[in-house]
């Protein structure tokens, strides 16, 4: 099968969906002829002309505009260059687009995708590297997607664009150059379905985004010492695939949750709490969480800050030594 890069998967998904549906438009900074900060919108202006709106630097307003346009029949994709800039658009996302359907008695649909590049790994510093997915997963009315491979990115972005609900689509910018198999044929990956990226029997590692790759590396390291780890890539944080996680735990009875975001109040806390509430009795040991320390991400010592495979291995080992 052919291989393409993560960022090309984003680009292909937008090309295909814009060709398929003339209501799809792209709004954002530098998304025009330059092709965007990460090259995700390359070739779109040439092909779709005025459906690509290169905006002034005003994330709050163009995100709110996307909500308004969506209520009037458009299907906007908003590009927020760095997910940190989502904080500038919180009113438009949280108070407006997330609530407009429910609050107005189901009269409107809000088919908006807000794409934002998240995460560290580029030494971009504390205002260009955050993982904020949990903020949005906490808001009723939003869906939150966070793919880790080119294949998942393309299939999930196409699903997000076709979804009639607002979707926060967190892209991992440190994965942009990563290559992976993507078929020529069209496919869609449903939002809310996890993917077991590595099958195992001793412990379940639940993760998403960049940490999927660290978890897979950890699984390889653990294999060498005869520990069989199952790696679940949630792919969607809201809704998250409880069935997949629970079926895995019914087999392994041990849970490690890992994400790049700050550990406190991260999505791992929700997974852990739900498992503790609903299947604590099936667990053989306390849950382990892996996440970043509770400080802003510094530009100079990212290696010390970012969670990695070794930390996941350590968490698994700790889990395996413990009992209730």
């Amino acid at each position, binding site marked *: 099968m052919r291989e393409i890069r993560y960022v090309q998967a984003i680009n292909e998904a937008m090309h295909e969906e814009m060709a398929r549906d003339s*209501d799809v*438009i792209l709004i954002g900074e530098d998304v025009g002829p330059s092709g965007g900060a990460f090259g995700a919108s390359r070739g779109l202006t040439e092909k779709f002309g*005025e*459906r690509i*709106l290169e*905006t*002034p630097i*005003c994330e*709050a*307003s*163009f*995100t*709110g*505009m*996307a*909500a*308004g*346009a*969506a*209520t*009037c*029949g*458009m299907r*906007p994709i908003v590009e927020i260059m760095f997910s940190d800039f989502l904080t500038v658009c919180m*009113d*438009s996302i949280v*108070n*407006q687009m997330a609530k*407009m*359907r*429910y*609050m*107005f*008695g*189901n*009269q*409107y*649909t809000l088919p908006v995708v807000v794409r934002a590049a998240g995460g560290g790994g580029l030494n971009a510093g504390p205002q260009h590297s955050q993982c904020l997915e949990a903020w949005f997963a906490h808001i*009723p*009315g939003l*869906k939150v997607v966070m793919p880790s491979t080119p294949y998942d990115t393309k299939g999930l972005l196409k699903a997000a664009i076709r*979804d*009639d*609900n607002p979707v926060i689509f967190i892209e991992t910018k440190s994965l942009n150059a990563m290559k992976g198999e993507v078929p020529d044929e069209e496919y869609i990956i449903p939002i809310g379905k996890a993917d077991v990226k590595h099958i195992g029997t001793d412990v379940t590692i639940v993760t998403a985004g960049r940490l999927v790759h660290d978890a897979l590396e950890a699984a390889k390291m653990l294999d060498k010492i005869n520990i069989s780890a199952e790696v679940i890539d949630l792919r969607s944080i809201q809704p998250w695939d409880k069935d997949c996680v629970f079926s895995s735990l019914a087999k392994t009875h041990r849970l490690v949750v890992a994400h790049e975001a700050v550990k406190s109040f991260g999505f791992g806390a929700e997974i852990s709490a739900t498992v503790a509430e609903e299947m604590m009795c099936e667990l053989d040991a306390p849950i382990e969480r892996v996440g970043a320390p509770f400080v802003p991400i510094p530009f100079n010592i990212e290696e010390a800050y970012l969670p990695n495979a070794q930390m996941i291995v350590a968490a698994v080992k700790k889990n395996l030594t413990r009992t209730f």
Partner: protein
Amino acid sequence: MNTRLNKTALDEKSMLQFYASMKRIRRVEETLMALFSQGVIPGFLHVCIGQEAAPVAVSSLLEDTDYIGSTHRGHGHVLAKGVDLKRFMAEIFGRKDGCCLGRSGSMHLADKDKGVLGANGIVGGGIPIAVGASLAAKYKYPGRVAVVYFGEGAADQGTFHECMNMASLWDLPIIFLCESNGWSQFTPKSVHMKSKCVADRAGSYGIPSETLNNDVIEIHHAAEQAINRARAGEGPTLLEIKCNRWFGHYVGDQQKYRDKKFVSDAQNEDCLQDYVKQLKKKKILDAKHLKETDDQIESEIQEAVDFAKNSPAPEADDLIQGLYV
């Protein structure tokens, strides 16, 4: 903008309709204030008494397929745009037959069939949304326009400036309709704005603007120009109406931040009674027609209140319905 070449002469029927629409909004608001003080309406209520002229003038030029974005003080805007009074009233009562199933109440009234994109609990929150609607109009429904109502307080929000910039840049069919009532909640204009008027701010974005008196005919003429320009693809306009907020920020506000003399002066500026005087002077409105119109309004309001009171209250099961499509 001061040259009104396309000024259309208003016929008597339209002029009488302006009276009826303004009076209807006034009486709805007075009725709501009375009902609120009886404790039968939950939540907060912000009435627009003294500000009836702008929505009536503007909406007389709009179709159902045109869009409006509104504010927390939005009853006049949505009623003038044609939201059914019974469903409006049921909404404010929080009942099932409300236009938003009773979920929005006074502050988030919306009606898709009438192009009402929602009153908004965030000051200035409606501006990006309405500008987005005008973007959809430009690409998908040429000829449609959007109007966004806001106050001078919202004109201090960054999104107001950002949206003016984009609307101008892309010649979007939107009218920025600023109702300058002098008060940002409890703060007078002099405390938060050095420029004399909001209209001055439009020029820096290349948007034509005009400051208008709170007079339904004057607003109608200016709005007609602005809407015609927008429909013709000639871009946005900002209109600023100098008006007064007769009452407190919300119903029940003790208004300790402004003195009684100020309030009584504000209430002496009455766009409704001034208009009645104009109509009488022109011999368009006589006592008989006035009474007939008023009686009709009273019975319509009474019917709407009865409808709202008799509408079923939502059940707990309704709570989790419809969050996602």
